[in-house]
């Protein structure tokens, strides 16, 4: 359904400073699949999602949607064309809804743009609001009248009303409370099943990503370090970074937590500006070998559909 080949997005900061936000991502997402993309802040996961659907211009590489190459730079016509099939749900439910538009205008905008009559738009909006668990009477209200969870539902209704095929969810739950997170995740799962959607679910909550996604991809400094079936990646991580990431993930179980050793991953993600060759994780990796810092590791399949980019598995 979705395929990228060595997708890159670099930002030119100054004449000799290039920020390698996304640095050669090759990934496939099958139809009806939920792919979870995890990584720390600054690993480039949101930039990848945005570049994929044309919100950023690609620096190089290819992206395909249903076998058809996506343009490098989306024109207004491209956006209109692809937005029928590709939609996005944003992270911050406070910043991503226009405070001066009513819910009807926000949710119905996509349909109005396609020339649907006002009365019909209203009908559709009412249907979708109830579908995401809001009251249809709420359509004349403004975003500030809703709680965070309700706003996220409005954002979801806005994306789903177009009946897209592929949706990028960029940290849709990180701004929400635990019990509300569960509501929103269940809603997304339910919509995914009933509409046959393909989802790219970007998040940093590992437990939630394991729960919702079929496959999981781990990013570090603009590159993919590991991809595979969610349970395989979570319960038998192979890349040293994935191992440390999952070891850091706290579990709601005090007895288990007491048996855990102190955090071994020291330091922080390095700067993505002017990165050199070699494995991006080599400077923090406890298992780093001399050649890790100058040879870029190639992705290696260690099991069916489980791919690791690490010299340890060469």
């Amino acid at each position: 359904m979705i395929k990228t080949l060595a997708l890159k997005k670099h930002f030119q900061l100054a004449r000799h400073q290039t920020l390698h936000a996304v640095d050669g991502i090759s990934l496939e997402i099958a139809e009806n699949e939920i792919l979870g993309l995890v990584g720390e802040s600054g690993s480039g996961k949101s930039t990848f999602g945005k570049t994929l659907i044309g919100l950023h211009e690609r620096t190089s590489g290819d992206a395909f949607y249903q076998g058809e190459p996506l343009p490098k730079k989306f024109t207004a016509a491209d956006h209109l064309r692809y937005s029928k099939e590709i939609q996005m749900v944003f992270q911050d439910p406070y910043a991503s809804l226009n405070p001066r538009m009513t819910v009807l205008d926000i949710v119905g905008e996509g349909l109005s743009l396609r020339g649907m009559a006002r009365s019909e738009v209203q009908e559709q909006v009412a249907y979708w609001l109830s579908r995401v668990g809001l009251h249809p009477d709420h359509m004349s209200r403004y975003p500030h009248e809703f709680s965070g969870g309700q706003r996220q539902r409005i954002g979801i209704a806005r994306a789903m009303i177009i009946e897209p095929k592929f949706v990028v969810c960029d940290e849709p739950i990180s701004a929400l409370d635990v019990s509300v997170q569960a509501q929103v995740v269940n809603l997304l799962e339910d919509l995914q099943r009933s509409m046959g959607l393909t989802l790219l679910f970007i998040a940093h909550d590992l437990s939630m990503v394991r729960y919702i996604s079929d496959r999981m991809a781990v990013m570090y400094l603009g590159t993919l370090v590991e991809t595979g079936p969610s349970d395989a990646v979570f319960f038998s991580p192979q890349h040293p970074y994935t191992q440390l990431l999952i070891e850091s993930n706290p579990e709601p179980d005090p007895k288990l937590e007491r048996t855990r050793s102190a955090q071994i991953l020291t330091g922080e993600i390095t700067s993505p500006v002017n990165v050199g060759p070699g494995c991006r994780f080599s400077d923090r990796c406890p298992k780093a070998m001399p050649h890790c810092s100058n040879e870029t590791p190639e992705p290696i399949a260690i099991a069916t559909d489980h791919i690791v980019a690490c010299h340890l598995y060469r």
Partner: protein
Amino acid sequence: MSNPPLLEVEGLTVEFETYGGVVKAVRGVDFTVEAGEVMAIVGESGCGKSVTVQSLMGIIPMPPGRVTAGSARLNGAELLGLEPKAANAFRGKEIGMIFQDPMTSLNPTMTIGDQIAETLKVHRGIPGQQAFESAIKLLEMTHIPEARKRATQYPFEFSGGMLQRAMIAQSLACSPSLLIADEPTTALDVTIQAQILDLIKTLQAQDAMAVILITHDLAVVARTAQKVCVMYAGQIIEHGSVDDIFYQSAHPYTLGLKSAMPSNIGDREKSLNPIPGSPPDLFSPPLGCGYAPRCPHAMRVCHEENPPFFKDSNNTGHAARCWLQAPNAPSVPELYQSNKIASDGA
């Protein structure tokens, strides 16, 4: 346990005057913190957990806020209703505090070293250069690399995790007997979160300092705390040791929170069970239990009368504000069932 507790809070009630009426944010909260223990206060947005600790620190804006009842004693000395000057004497000295958002809680126009040194100058009267040297030592203690160079930098030159370390260094400058950490890791990545929680735990154990950890994340509680208070709608609804709260949960809300989280242990394929509905309006708090409208086990009495605390029969200090725990309450098999799943998974 013969010593009096370090901090004793009784009947704390805080209200806010707004255009829409009076919000009863904290409705009679009691708890104690012993020296050298980590106590977590867990709850969702709007449950009053931050307001509770902010009123201890005297940093609630008044008006619109006001503490209408209750007392809070640190080593026997009353904290509530102090004059600003008296409050300044213990804030930062007896009680240190770290906030959720390190970016906005530090002064952007002062170097990190000067901000930490300021605490020492004000509370300890240590002269400038000496205070700055101590600031460098504190930064080293929180594992900031190149502390001497970092001390001369400004907050914008630090990452989120480093700023949180700097704020911990600042709050520990006067070796407080109590550290209040209000969602210290919510804005951080898991790897950095683990580093910060380990740091807080190590420093806490070194100085036998008490910590109140405010969070909404049960996993963070499991990793860090010894004692837990669960808050809902301005009240503590369950308190006890971390094991009692996780493995012998007595309040349906605590169980609800647990089953709303994905499980990676035990039953991995367990579905997420969100808590239906939303918390009550604190403009007019309900007569009965605040959780009753969302509770799957609610009885008539739950809607009519707010339950008192019912103690666990083992007398371990575990208690829940729930009518189901009353001696004559009907038993709820599912409640025990869900507890069993949790403890089997361990």
